[in-house]
């Protein structure tokens, strides 16, 4: 029980800080939140009007409490630029980002698991060394650079995939997937590099253990042992990492959505910036942060279900 109490307490703490951070984004804006809502060119009378409408002269904690209460009830304010509830705008964009992130994770794992297993089956082999070098390089190259190179090769030169042409999932699944290949692959490569390195290291650790020696002693070939016996017990770190990386990918998708003109949450946020439509920026920030916190909690739950020992030992840190 102590594990869960600790976990939930830290969840509450993190959510409080995250929402405070998102609230302060607008509250600390030069000119105050009313400028964020009406835009910098609004006339002073309307500014004063909004100021009293929103009771912005109340003490900070009152305002913050009210804002959190609204957010919990699904009200993230209105976009002054589009004159629509921010929540509706976010809701429209969620599926695109979610699809991008999920596809990227699937692609990354599809690449990483076989590559890591083949490397661990023959450590130090030519394949292992090439995979190691490649993963180091792909870890270092920024995602948008990888994306530009892919666009140049596959969209501009070979014209296999579109560089910026989005079809909604509901309209046509195959065209949608076609338009998502490049963005998802761009987002996946760096993750695949990380996953490969982590899984390979864990596999090599597992291969030192007795039950593997027993399997090898029965005369099973090393590669078969890696895939059939070592893979599952070596996958714990990978599972955690995949979960934690949803946040990384949500951030990364801002860049990728911009690069490929995908109408996801990141693009919503970036498009709102030139219009100084900051309620939208704030809404997306809060939404993404809360989603990330919840995913992290789910990962912890999953992780402790996979390995019950975790629950007994308080996590270090």
């Amino acid at each position, binding site marked *: 029980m102590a594990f869960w109490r600790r976990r939930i307490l830290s969840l509450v703490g993190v959510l409080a800080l995250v929402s405070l951070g998102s609230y302060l984004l607008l509250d600390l804006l030069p000119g105050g939140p009313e400028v964020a809502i009406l835009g910098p060119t609004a006339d002073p009378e309307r500014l004063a009007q909004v100021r009293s409408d929103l009771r912005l002269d109340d003490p900070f904690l009152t305002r913050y409490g009210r804002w959190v209460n609204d957010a919990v009830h699904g009200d993230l304010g209105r976009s002054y630029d589009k004159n629509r509830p921010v929540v509706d705008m976010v809701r429209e964009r969620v599926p695109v980002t979610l699809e991008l992130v999920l596809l990227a994770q699937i692609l990354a794992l599809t690449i990483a698991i076989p590559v890591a297993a083949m490397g661990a089956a023959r450590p130090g082999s030519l394949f292992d060394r090439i995979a190691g070098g490649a993963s180091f390089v792909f870890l270092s190259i*920024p995602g948008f650079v990888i994306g530009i190179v892919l666009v140049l090769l596959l969209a501009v030169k070979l014209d296999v995939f579109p560089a910026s042409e989005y079809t909604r999932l509901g309209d046509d699944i195959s065209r949608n997937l076609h338009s998502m290949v490049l963005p998802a692959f761009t987002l996946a490569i760096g993750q695949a590099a990380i996953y490969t390195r*982590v899984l390979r290291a864990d596999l090599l650790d597992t291969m030192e253990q007795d039950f593997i020696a027993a399997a090898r002693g029965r005369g099973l070939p090393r590669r078969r042992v890696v895939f059939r016996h070592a893979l599952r017990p070596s996958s714990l770190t990978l599972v955690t990492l995949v979960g*934690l990386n949803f946040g990384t990918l949500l*951030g*990364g998708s801002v860049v990728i959505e911009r*690069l490929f003109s995908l109408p996801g949450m990141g693009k919503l946020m970036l498009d709102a910036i030139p219009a100084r439509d900051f309620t939208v920026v704030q809404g997306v920030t809060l939404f993404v942060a809360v989603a990330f916190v919840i995913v992290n909690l789910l990962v912890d739950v999953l992780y402790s279900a996979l390995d019950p020992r975790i629950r007994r030992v308080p996590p270090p840190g």
Partner: protein
Amino acid sequence: MFRRQAEEGRAEPRARSDRGVLFRLALAWLALLVVVAVLAPLWPTDPDRGHLLRRLEGPGWRHPFGFDGNGRDILARVLHGARVSLIVGTLAVAIGLGIGGALGLVAGYFRRRVDTLIVTVLDSMLAFPALVLAVAVTAIRGQSVTTVTAVIGVLMVPLFARIARAGTLAAVERDYVIAARTLGGRSSRIVRQEILPNVVGPLIVFALLAFGIVILIEGALSFIGVGVSVDTVSWGGIIAGGQGRLREAPHVSLFPAAVLSLTILAVNYVGDTLRGGGSVSVRIGAR
């Protein structure tokens, strides 16, 4: 992600003889970059002057990187862009190292409530998708080198704090520290003279890797148009400028992209080698 990197920061440095040609090449590239950034104003070509007749002109003998969509010399722009990357990189790492290092020392030395408080706050910071936060803050606070540096610097704080804290927790168990405490030495003196020397090494090595992360985030922010202001030449900005013209003029994006990638690669390679190699060097949501 962060956690992993932070904990790996403690490994012992590798023996000098193991460092090969690649290590020296990487160091040479970084040294060249520093020289270039310092001397960029002396470069004869003006990075802001557009030659209307040479728009999108490809690489040539006198202008090895060619011209961008406004007819500006790309090599000159890349040279000037190095200044932004290095300034933001150095200062943001300094912020992370200074604040994060101090927090980690305090948390590890005093432990108990202080530790719990600091660790909770730092974990909350890690719980925030870094790039989203950076975009939101630069968008709202205005785009400038100062804002970008400050935001990325704050993002670096929890990483440095973790490493400093881990080193401190190990050091306070050492006999000479226990002795100093038992003799009633002042905390500030013990931390400065007995513990700090144990923590500085891993922090410095990590600073190098953090430098790579910072340059990457700065590049990504400038690429999506929320980094340093549009008037300041930055690598991410130059790359973004060529993105729409990949068909006619791929060189506009590719040269600065290659320079940016090589720089991060070099930083990571040097950092990884110093740290003992074989570890995963990770970055925060900047993909």
